[in-house]
């Protein structure tokens, strides 16, 4: 019979303490099918065909791609449900049947580049790495040989409408119905942060995990800036944010819900949500127990008599808990010869230390001096328990540095490494060389101790956003933090006057150097005109007589 497929959509809204508002969309398509083992899958219903073909053609086991415009401000906004670095990020696990991984990766990036209208074709060997520990498969499967993993970021990639449209087209309802009607680009790109992602992975069909399904998650995170100075209560509504209201769920969706995070307001003093709902839900999100008001769009009653849902919230912004883990990075030093990359990792937990995996991928034109690598916490040397370093090859591959560092409680750990700026060939400079060159974000992956002990609720009832990263240990949760990308200036020639330079150089070499060399190496003597025959004979005679010649 026809393989079963299922589509769910969900929107989580969290008022942030800084006064901004965070909206996170998730769309999940599950399909019980098998792209592998020579199966020709040709009948697509909910799952987008373009991605299905990519999976089968390139033997992809897992694919994660994100496009982000802006930097997630961990200190102001807390943790995002799904972190992503500024620019584009792509990481793919291939099936172990793939023989030429690099070739397949190259092709895959070009195909994805077309699908998402992005410059993913700029991914090549100079910005691709194979992390040994930081990016483990998130779906089922037992292959962890990192030969089948490829990871690349394009920190300079600018995300805009042309990336959003193809992303929306992957949805079963497109942007015609359901939550996706809210995704209007003129509002989404009038925000402080915008991130969209696609995650494909194989997951278990049931708890016994006898058969597998393919899961496609499309996520979109956006933070709206609601700064209005001198105002106590902040107000927000669906219409104000998206300039749309909701009238129906996507008819193809088995579930369509809106969650509003009301955790910070147990007594209802801070918050005012209208229309009110009695549906409440609790979930563990990033180590914290959160309470949500739930609106089920599949129920007609949600839309009320006006047949339109325009959620409205008023709340007060307050100070917030410092996030347990956050990181920042910068370039130290001045001048165009050397520099130093500083990565700071903050553990704000009052009494627990935890290990983090730091992944740094640095382009070859910053030549890292790995002997200058230092890791210090609280003024003391902090020896990493694992270091994986792959030096760069000029014009071929980047530096890869991965290490496992234990962060002491309540501390800042500083990782520094010095580098030298390479002189590029003149054709290798970008068209805007004085803008600088980008170094992608470093990635910090960690199991962070949970604030609340893990809940033992049945996992089926959990909202989607809480169940992405598999979490084995109950007392801690997985977290990934991206630092800001770096913009580094390289020594740049003055491209505006190549003609002058060529002329001057040629003149100096030809006239100046040539003649000077000539003058310095030759000795000049006045040469007498050669004497006549008579004089020569006379000289021979004089020589025989022992008299000095004429």
């Amino acid at each position, binding site marked *: 019979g026809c393989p079963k497929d299922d589509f769910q959509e969900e929107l989580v809204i969290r008022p942030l303490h800084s006064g901004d508002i965070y909206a996170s969309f998730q769309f999940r398509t599950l399909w019980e099918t098998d792209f592998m083992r020579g199966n020709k899958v040709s009948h697509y219903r909910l799952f987008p065909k373009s991605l299905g073909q990519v999976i089968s053609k390139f033997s992809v086991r897992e694919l994660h791609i994100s496009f982000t415009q802006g930097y997630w401000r961990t200190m102001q906004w807390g943790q995002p449900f799904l972190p992503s670095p*500024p620019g584009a990020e792509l990481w793919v696990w291939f099936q172990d049947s793939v023989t030429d991984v690099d070739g397949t990766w190259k092709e895959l990036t070009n195909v994805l580049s077309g699908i998402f209208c992005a410059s993913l074709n700029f991914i090549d060997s100079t910005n691709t790495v194979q992390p040994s520990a930081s990016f483990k498969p998130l779906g089922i499967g037992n292959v962890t040989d990192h030969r089948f993993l490829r990871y690349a970021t394009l920190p300079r990639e600018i995300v805009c409408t042309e990336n959003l449209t193809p992303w929306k087209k992957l949805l079963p309802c497109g942007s015609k119905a359901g939550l996706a009607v809210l995704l209007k680009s003129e509002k989404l790109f009038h925000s402080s942060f915008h991130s969209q992602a696609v995650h494909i992975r194989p997951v278990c069909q049931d708890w016994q995990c006898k058969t597998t399904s393919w899961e496609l998650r499309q996520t979109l995170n956006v933070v709206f800036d609601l700064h209005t*100075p001198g105002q106590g209560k902040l107000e927000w509504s669906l219409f104000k944010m998206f300039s749309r209201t909701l009238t129906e769920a996507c008819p193809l969706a088995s579930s369509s819900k809106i969650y509003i995070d009301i955790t910070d307001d147990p007594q209802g003093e801070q918050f005012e949500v209208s229309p009110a709902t009695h549906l409440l839900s609790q979930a563990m999100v990033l180590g914290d127990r959160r309470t949500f008001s739930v609106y089920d769009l599949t129920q007609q009653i949600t839309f009320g008599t006006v047949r339109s849902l325009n959620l409205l919230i008023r709340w007060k912004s307050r100070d917030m808990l410092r996030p347990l883990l956050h990181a920042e990075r910068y370039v130290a*030093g001045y001048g165009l010869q050397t520099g130093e990359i500083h990565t700071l990792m903050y553990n704000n937990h009052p009494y627990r230390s935890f290990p983090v995996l730091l992944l740094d991928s640095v382009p070859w034109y910053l030549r890292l001096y790995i002997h200058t690598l230092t890791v210090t916490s609280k003024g003391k040397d902090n020896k990493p328990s694992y270091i994986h370093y792959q030096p760069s090859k000029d014009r071929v591959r980047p530096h890869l540095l991965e290490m496992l560092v234990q962060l002491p409680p309540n501390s800042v750990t500083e990782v520094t490494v010095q580098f030298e700026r390479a002189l590029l060939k003149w054709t290798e400079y970008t068209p805007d060389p004085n*803008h600088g060159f980008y170094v992608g974000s470093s990635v910090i992956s960690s199991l962070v101790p949970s604030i609340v002990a893990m809940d033992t609720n049945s996992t089926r009832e959990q909202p989607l956003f809480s169940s992405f990263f598999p979490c084995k240990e109950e007392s801690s949760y997985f977290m990934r933090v991206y630092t800001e990308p*770096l913009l580094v*200036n390289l020594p740049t020639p003055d491209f505006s006057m190549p003609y002058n330079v060529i002329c001057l150089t040629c003149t100096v070499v030809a006239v100046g150097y040539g*003649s000077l060399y*000539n003058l310095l190496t030759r000795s000049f003597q006045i040469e007498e005109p050669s004497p006549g025959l008579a004089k020569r004979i006379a000289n021979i005679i004089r020589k025989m007589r022992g008299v000095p010649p004429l």
Partner: protein
Amino acid sequence: MGLLSDPNRRRALISLLTRLNAPICVVCYMAGVAWFMGLAFEPFTLRTYMSENAMGSTMVEERFPAGERALGTGREFSAHKKKAGGMPVDWLVKTMQSRGLEVFTQRFSRRLPFPDEDKERYMVKGTNVYGILRAPRAPRTEALVLSAPCSPGDDNNQAVGVLLGLAQYFRNQVFWAKDIIFLVNEHDLIGMQAWLEGYHHTNTTGMDWSPLQGRGGSIQAALSLELSSDVVTSLDLVLEGLNGQLPNLDLANLFYAFCQKIGVLCTTQGKLQRNDWDSVSGYSHAVQTMMLMVMKQASGRPWGDHGLFLRYHIEAATIKGINSFRQYKTDATTIGRLLEGMYRKLNNLLERLHQSYFFYLMPSLSHFVSIGYYMPAFGLLALILLLRALDLWIQLATPPPRTEDGVADAEQMSSPGVLSVLTPLVISHLTGVALYTLPIHFQEIAVEHFPVSETEAVVLTAIAVYTAGLALPHNTHRLLTGRGTENGWKVLKLVAVLYLAVLLGCTALINFSLGFILALTLVPVAAFVTPDVPKALSAFIMVILSPACTLLFSVFLFQELQEMPVSFLDGWMLYLSVISQGILDHALYGSLVYPLVALLVYPCWLLFWNILFWK
């Protein structure tokens, strides 16, 4: 070069150069000075123009409305400053936070090597407060800085007010593509130095500062605002930074363009530009403006808080509000609009400012002289040194004319030993090292034994070492070889002339003004001095043309150009304070003028002094 390959013609050329050496040198000197003076003549200069396309064609509209409110904030700031007796850190943090910025503070402390009597400080402790306006959807890779100093007394309160007003206004705009950092720095340059070192995590001068918590990536440009009155008559643009570094000319062009657009009187070196370039007074006005710039650049000190940014390749300038007795006044709203316009254009930048000139002089804000035009003036002076060196070389290379009896002067033929040249070189450089190190190290001893303050002790020690250098027994070669040989001083002079040429050449490449001023006084010394000239008169001229006296004359000239002439006694006091400031600039910010003069220029001058007393 065929000219030189032909021995006959070469001989002719050489004899021409040796016979006419002195006249050619005089002509070169005159031509160099004339060329330099001609630079201020308007028809010889270029009009400024915007080179950066990203700032040129895109017009922006300035709408900053809240000048009055900004001044109110400034008054509030002033009240809190008085109450706190310094930087009102808490108030600033709260105010910036309420304007929607991410606010951070940085503490710093610095013990000066000796008390700064001009600014009355010794142990400096302070706090910088800065707020970052995060650009929406920007990945924290680029930033712009707007700073205002928290000055003692009633100065610059309005600047802080305008800064906070702009922060509030900017926060509600959506077009920012770069983070904007609003910085209020305490203790002017010391605070700025601490902040910049913290931002770039360098430590060049041994200052203590707490690490910065928030950053905005690589800083593309910075402006520092100084404003001490509610209304101003004109805005002055200060460009000269540490070690004579200048920001890209496009930054000055940007300022000028907006002053023109908004209708604000703008000046550079405090001088308005005039239109009557063809009159004598118009020309002398341009010369004054240019000379002021040359003097300021030559001093190597940062002339505003922007001066320290330049080391980090951040284009920066200071904008000073000037309130004089003129009818036409500009209010804070207009200044705010001007800054808004400048920041919006800087925000449009796709690359760092690099299109326009980094080396230039400005005889007025609308005209500039680029490096290609002013370098010949220095080149003509440096040519004298090369001609003299050539002359000496030829004298040393050609054997002296044989005497009638055919016996060559054996002693003259023998080349002087290495020691006779090396000894004066080493001694004069040791004197230079003493001049560089002793003043700061001996201040405590000096204070114990003499009734002077530490600062006076440092300056007087410096002058004492300098004078003692003149009295040192330089003619050590006599101890080595019996008596000074004729060739001995020629070799020494050849070495000294070439040394001076290299030294001045390198200096002029980095800091043209310093190189040119030093060349003006040292080149004549180098050219004329021999052991055979009249001792007393020459010695007097040499002392007059020595680096220390150059500085003294520069102080008087500078005051004259600023139209604030001083009496000799005041000038002398000013001179002493300039010396102490120079040493402080070196210790605090890493200015290189003092070590350059003490370790290289002064020893080089001593070599010529040595030649004078060779016999």
